[in-house]
């Protein structure tokens, strides 16, 4: 028999017991206590790296098993049996353990069902709500739902996480495809055109990854040098604006030393 058992293969002593019962093909309603206890103790011996915290729970179960085993060895006195027919069943020292195991098994199986649902659901993707804040009238700031609680906040964070997962890799892909300054200069000029020749500085950076941002920035500097665009700021700390000063023929932008 192999003792290569890892602790984290089981989610607790009951799980380990169920595993043994299944493997030894034991009838759960008539558990041979000596055999099960022996196997159980062998297993926890084999689990070398027990965290102290969890070890205690496995050890408590071992003690319980030993106690049940020894109680089963005790002779049942005839007289006690006659006292009440009802107690005959309840007298089986295994009953409490069996009940526990069966109850636990139910939820263990339910967890497997949940796992299936989880993987089905993972095949389906949604999208975050659109940002509608620009549509609200100024005087009426977004009302805060009066019924939100702390857990709604956690929920909100969970959504941010999901979204970030979708955002990030797309950007890393962009990074890999080597953006040229030439392309980025075109992109900047094109977006300026689409914004009517003037755009907030930050609008020119709809990118997530560092490389693209840097290349875009360098392109803006290059365009400034060539006096294709200029940058202005009304007051300290206010948003910068980029202005397209002249229409450039495409081939003029092609001459870039990279």
């Amino acid at each position, binding site marked *: 028999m192999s003792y290569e058992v890892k602790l984290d293969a089981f*989610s*607790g*002593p*009951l*799980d380990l017991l169920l595993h043994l019962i299944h493997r030894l093909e034991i009838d759960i309603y008539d558990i041979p206590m000596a055999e099960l206890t022996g196997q159980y103790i062998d297993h926890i011996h084999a689990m070398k790296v027990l965290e102290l*915290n*969890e070890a205690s*729970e496995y050890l408590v*179960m071992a003690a319980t098993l030993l106690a049940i085993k020894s109680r089963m060895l005790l002779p049942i006195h005839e007289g006690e049996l006659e006292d009440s027919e009802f107690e005959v069943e309840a007298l089986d020292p295994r009953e409490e353990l069996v*009940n*526990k195991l*069966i*109850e*636990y*098994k*139910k*939820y*263990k*199986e*339910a*967890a*497997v*069902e*949940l*796992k299936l*649902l*989880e*993987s*089905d*659901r*993972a*095949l*389906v*993707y*949604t*999208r*975050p*709500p*659109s940002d*509608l804040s620009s549509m609200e009238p100024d005087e009426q700031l977004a009302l805060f739902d009066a019924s939100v*609680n702390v*857990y709604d906040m*956690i*929920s909100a*964070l*969970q*959504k941010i996480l*999901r979204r970030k*997962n*979708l955002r*990030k*890799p*797309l950007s*890393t892909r962009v990074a890999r495809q080597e953006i040229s300054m030439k392309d980025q200069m075109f992109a900047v000029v094109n977006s300026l055109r689409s914004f009517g020749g003037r755009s907030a500085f930050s609008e020119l950076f709809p990118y997530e990854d560092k490389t693209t941002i840097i290349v875009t920035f360098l392109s803006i500097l290059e365009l400034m040098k060539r006096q294709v665009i200029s940058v202005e700021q009304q007051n300290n700390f206010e948003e910068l604006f980029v202005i397209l000063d002249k229409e450039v023929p495409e081939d003029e932008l092609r001459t870039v030393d990279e």
Partner: protein
Amino acid sequence: MNLELLMSKLEALLFVVGDEGINVKQFSQLLEVESMEIEAALSELKTYYEESNMRGITLKNLAGTYQLTTKTDMADTIKKLVENPTSHVLSTASLEVLAIIAYKQPITRVEIEDLRGVKSDRPIQTLVSRALIQEVGRAEGTGRAILYGTTKEFLNYFGLDSLDELPPLPEQVLKDDDQETDLFMTKFQEAFSSEE
């Protein structure tokens, strides 16, 4: 409102609310259209999404709302966007705790630990932080222990519209309290119906 126009409005609204979802009542209020008409149009929309091979999206009931989602067979394509699609899957321990909470809510930590025979504070913490469970009240008695229940995010995470859609618990072999009540109710109803 003609059906096509209604469908286009439903699609636009569904698109905008995203994973927040929206229900028939809200649709009805926003569009000033009877619920029945909304439902008919939604079902039309769903059929249309499902039957057209050109469509990558479809309509789903999630956590008591309607939401647009991508179709299941788009998963492989979309997965390429996601770096580590399986990294956030729940552990066995977390799933066990979650199953217990889902079926037995409201329930305290001690009751959960008693059922599992093992300490469960870590999985509970994980589940709270993943917004799958939350405190739904306090148990009576001196400890006033936290009672846990599942969240909307739980339904969403497992693709359920409501708790009723949870798969039934594996056969209840035991005479636990719940079952006794059930049994009683069954007997009771049998007795009752046989009398008529």
